[in-house]
């Protein structure tokens, strides 16, 4: 048995996972190879997914964009800014051009790092993931997918195939705090999506908890404060929104920043994202 499988169809990929149950799934490799390069991982087998056509491409539908798990951040950044503005803005902050050309949305989900830049956007958008296995397909809401630091509900034998992101009518913002504008792992990040039709505001936050989180109290508070015809809100309500977002997170202190800094920074970027979204 070869220790690396390079399947060219989803069926072959699922068969390969069956034959190599300890295999590491490989997408762009930008997280995995760092662990291998530093000797932290010695995978007994690899199932490389980049040749699987079922994971390629995207389809823009009336109410959602159906993204292949193998779509790279470069494609999201260059081709989907109109349909998925916050996701495209997040894409532009992922690593460097070199990373974005290789790294995929499915890889970002599978790694499930607390600092994964795409995850807060997908959470705020109420995206859903299609997971395929030999037993068929199941669809999992983004809110249920990540269960802890680098932990997900993905089962052995399962592959993320598609990511379905609802299209919303309204402003979207993605803001990220790091030590420079490029090539940085976020200290915290925030995705704010406004749904003018459903009259909701969705706030997704990254790097401030073991998983990406929403800020439900802040969301419902501001939705009630907004004048939806004018898309405006009183200044003190915008300030209150930032405070409620701050209260919704549970950041830790690590080498990238302290818990206190993250709480303050996430309040600032959440407030700023809202200010930019309102008239």
């Amino acid at each position, binding site marked *: 048995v070869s220790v690396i499988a390079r399947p060219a169809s989803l069926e072959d990929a699922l068969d390969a996972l069956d034959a190599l149950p300890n295999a590491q799934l490989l997408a762009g490799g930008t997280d995995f190879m760092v662990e291998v390069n530093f000797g932290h991982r010695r995978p007994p087998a690899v199932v490389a997914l980049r040749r699987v056509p079922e994971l390629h491409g995207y389809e823009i539908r009336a109410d959602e964009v159906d993204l292949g798990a193998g779509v790279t951040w*470069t494609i999201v950044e260059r081709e989907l800014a109109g349909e998925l503005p916050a996701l495209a803005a997040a894409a532009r902050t992922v690593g460097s051009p070199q990373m974005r050309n290789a790294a995929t949305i499915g890889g970002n989900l599978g790694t499930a790092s607390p600092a994964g830049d795409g995850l807060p956007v997908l959470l705020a958008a109420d995206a859903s993931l299609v997971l395929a296995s030999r037993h068929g397909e199941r669809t999992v809401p983004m809110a249920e997918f990540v269960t802890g630091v680098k932990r997900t509900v993905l089962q052995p034998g399962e592959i993320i195939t598609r990511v379905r992101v609802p299209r919303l009518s309204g402003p979207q913002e993605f803001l990220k705090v790091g030590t420079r504008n490029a090539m940085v792992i976020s200290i915290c990040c925030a995705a704010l999506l406004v749904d003018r039709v459903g009259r909701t505001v969705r706030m997704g936050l990254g790097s401030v908890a073991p998983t990406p989180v929403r800020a439900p109290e802040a969301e419902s508070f501001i939705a009630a404060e907004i004048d939806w015809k004018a898309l405006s809100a009183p200044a003190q309500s915008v300030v209150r929104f930032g405070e409620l977002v701050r209260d919704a997170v549970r950041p830790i202190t690590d080498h990238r920043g302290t818990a206190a800094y993250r709480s303050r920074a996430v309040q600032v970027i959440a407030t700023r994202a809202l200010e930019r979204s309102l008239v």
Partner: protein
Amino acid sequence: VSTPDPQGGVSDALHDPTTKDSRGGQDYPSSEGAQDFPLETYVLSVNGRELLVDDAWVGESLLYVLRERLGQPGSKNACEQGECGSCSVLMDGALVASCCVLAADAIGSAITTVEGLTGEGELSDVQRAFIEQGAVQCGFCIPGMIVALTDLLDRSPAASELEMREAISGNLCRCTGYGRIFAAFRQVQEERDRARA
């Protein structure tokens, strides 16, 4: 030389940088651990030539294979975590950090390294502009810079200053302060503009 843990895990010795493979770069298991660290033989397409990679550990990066197995040391090895851009190559025309590409998964892709940008002994316009503008100091980052800027100039000939800066945002230079690298980029743009006119 590092040795694999018989349990199939990673021995402490592998975490100790002093035990690094003498060739530099990744710590690679020795061939005695073949069953724990299985080997693969495959062919990569590099700079238009089909090159055999014989009995390589499956976890080897494209950077390692290019430098240590295929005699293409132009791509430089520094951070091994996709941060510095000194290992930049083109893979099917897309700029990637070869340290973050699994070599055994690069089968079937056309790989272009800095060595493959021109014929043997020739300089590309980008390389010549780097020399003429004095854009090279220690030189370590330069192959990556050249590959990244060649990619941008081919893809987006009229790229703005900001686009150029973003295009090399994943390439670190610690010597020059970037100013002369930017000047080299503008020189190539002007030369190519004149050539088209």
